[in-house]
């Protein structure tokens, strides 16, 4: 029984389904919509421990909004949300295609995860600040950031606000509550906590929101964020988007064999909630709850959005090499756009016709904007940012050695 002398073996978690296998989500426990109660915002973190192991859901399979968490949004709000998600999806499709046509170098889409960023954006107040990853473009769409500016950035053309310095989609939009995206995973998570601490130090009432992917929770910045957020009771909402995959690596490698990502909050006494990430209403309601908690000085909330990355990791990725092509279709939480559409239809506030019409309008809008952007330029074609811009902005004032180098470079 002591194990002395008995050979050990290494446990390496593997997903149940690889290319050729049939996806089977029967072990994936999904509580009924409405089953998880909504606690008061000043609840003690430890009293809602079970919420890290359940899933807050509002929309049931008939498209009805049920339970405590329902009712935070009007039909107008919901139609706006639907439009945001549809816009994001159309935008993504067009841009991914533009990348394939060689108009830019790279693209990453939010396919299947649109509800999260789109609904979350609507739970914040002006002046609050998101620290996003590359998969939260919905925060910009839902904050009415100009699509044209996004495209100019993606094309690295002369109107790119970042002057061609950054890869596509690594936007920065302070006035829209959107922190400059880093290519380095995880770093922004603890920065969001610092921003929130600064708000508290300044006696301000603004809150911050940190974002991280399931795979990236393994990064050390996750720990730093949790330590600082819990110690200083920072007014921050910490969001984990669990879309099941980190490039080719399934979430079990970051999560370990047991528990949930939300449960990571328990070691820090942080209120932790799991939510159906494909349910616009649930995402919005939980985000609102957490934002209110932060704003009242009650401290951080850790939210895990349970969702699925329906597309490739990026334009450089081919998921068929490591997961079953049937998996996206088998994903049991459905599609966020379809679900919100069905809900609106079921409450008599939407129809298939209006939906088709909206789709057409959105496509036409996106195409119009795309033409404007392309008229300026695409990567390597048309009006481009200046090489001089590479030297500008490294410092506020260009130091002598950079001036020399710029001159050597001939700009």
């Amino acid at each position, binding site marked *: 029984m002591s194990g002395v002398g008995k050979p050990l*073996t290494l446990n*390496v978690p593997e997903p149940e389904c690889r290319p050729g296998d049939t996806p089977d989500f029967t072990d994936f426990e999904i509580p009924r919509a409405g089953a998880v109660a909504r606690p008061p915002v000043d609840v003690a973190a430890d009293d809602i421990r079970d919420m890290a192991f359940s899933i807050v859901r509002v929309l049931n399979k008939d498209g009805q909004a049920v339970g405590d968490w329902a009712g935070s949004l009007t039909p107008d709000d919901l139609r706006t949300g639907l439009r945001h998600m549809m816009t994001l999806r159309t935008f993504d499709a067009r841009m991914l295609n533009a990348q394939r046509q060689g108009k830019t*170098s790279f693209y990453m889409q939010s396919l299947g995860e649109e509800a999260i960023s789109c609904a979350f954006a609507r739970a914040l107040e002006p002046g609050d600040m998101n620290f996003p990853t590359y998969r939260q473009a919905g925060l910009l769409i839902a904050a009415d950031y100009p699509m044209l500016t996004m495209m100019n950035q993606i094309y*690295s053309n002369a109107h790119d606000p970042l*002057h*061609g*310095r950054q890869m596509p989609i690594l936007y920065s939009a302070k006035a829209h509550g959107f922190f400059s995206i880093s290519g380095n*995973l995880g770093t922004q998570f603890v920065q969001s906590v610092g921003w929130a601490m600064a708000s508290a130090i300044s006696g301000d009432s603004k809150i911050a929101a940190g974002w991280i992917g399931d795979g990236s929770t393994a990064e050390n910045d996750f720990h730093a964020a949790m330590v600082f957020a819990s110690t200083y009771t920072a007014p921050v909402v910490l969001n984990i988007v669990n879309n099941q995959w980190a490039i080719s690596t399934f979430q079990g490698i970051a999560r370990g064999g047991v528990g949930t990502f939300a449960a990571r909050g328990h070691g820090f006494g942080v209120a932790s909630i799991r939510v159906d990430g494909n349910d616009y209403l649930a995402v919005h309601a939980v985000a609102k709850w957490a934002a209110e908690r932060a704003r009242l000085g009650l401290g951080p909330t850790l939210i895990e959005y349970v969702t699925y990355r329906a597309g490739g990791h990026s334009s450089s990725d081919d998921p068929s090499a490591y997961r079953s092509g049937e998996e996206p279709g088998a994903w049991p939480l459905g599609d966020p756009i379809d679900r919100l559409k069905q809900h609106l239809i079921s409450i008599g506030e939407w129809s298939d016709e209006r939906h088709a019409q909206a789709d057409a309008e959105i496509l036409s809008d996106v195409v119009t904007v795309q033409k404007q952007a392309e008229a300026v330029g695409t990567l390597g074609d048309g009006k481009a940012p200046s090489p001089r811009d*590479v*030297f500008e902005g490294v410092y506020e004032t260009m130091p002598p050695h950079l001036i020399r180098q710029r001159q050597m470079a001939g700009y």
Partner: protein
Amino acid sequence: MTMIEAIRDAHDVAMGGDNRVVVYGEDVGFFGGVFRCTAGLQEKYGRSRCFDAPINESGIVGTAIGMAAYGLKPVIEIQFADYVYPAYDQIVSEAARLRHRSNGDFTCPIVIRMPTGGGIFGGQTHSQSPEAIFTHVSGLKVVIPSNPVDAKGLLLASIADPDPVIFLEPKRLYNGPFDGHHDRPLTTWKKHALGAVPEGDEIVPLGKAKITRDGADVTVLAYGTMVYVAETAAKESGVDAEVIDLRSLLPLDLETIAASVKKTGRCVIVHEATRTCGFGAELMSLVQEECFYSLEAPIIRVTGWDTPYPHAQEWQYFPGPARVGEALKQVMEE
């Protein structure tokens, strides 16, 4: 063979020959790495010899140090050199110091592989060349191949080495030699002599540079992608330049370098990394220390600028054959 295949082959030979060799990193297991350098190894050697790691570069290196202390020989991949910084503490304070601080009680024979350099429109976080932050650290070795033959041989030598090795893979060379003329058709390793990678466990020893082009008038010190750029610049500028591929930055083959500069009396140093405190500064210092009285002109550095690696202006940043050629002419004029 491409450089990717050569690296894969080196892994295969090392794992086949020594079951202490274990391979892991982000996406390294089932998928075989985002550049596919470890494809097929998990299937062949099992999940406990080749596996996916959590996205935690510091943890990847930290666990590798523990494994090495146990007696294994971990070969780990950092997905891009730009992502090695979180692991810098474990590398500098631990891997590099362990043998010395324990007086050999514990050692750290690990290889930390990472794709380096630009030229793929990867922007500031998929293009960096951080060699200088490793060459400054006592206890590390730093290796960078420029072709499939060297990639395999140097990787085998690195795995066999009893000390920690930073193994930088110029990603722009993975699929073919690249001379900096980004607007010309791609070439592949298939047609290149150095794509003919020998089978088996032939190593290329660390610390030996290679003269890839003989010349009389100026010595060009280069490594990685810049080797081809330098060769091309020499050809195109008409300057009779001797090009040295350093292959290993630490230990450095100062003998070969000094002999060449003493012969030519002139020196141009080329690297893609940012200029200030880059490895070029050390090369320049060593050359002036060793060859001062032979130098007929100031040594010139051609490097990346002291800015982040830009996305759209990639080719203005990249020290291409035009810039290197100008430096060659300039050094001849002085």
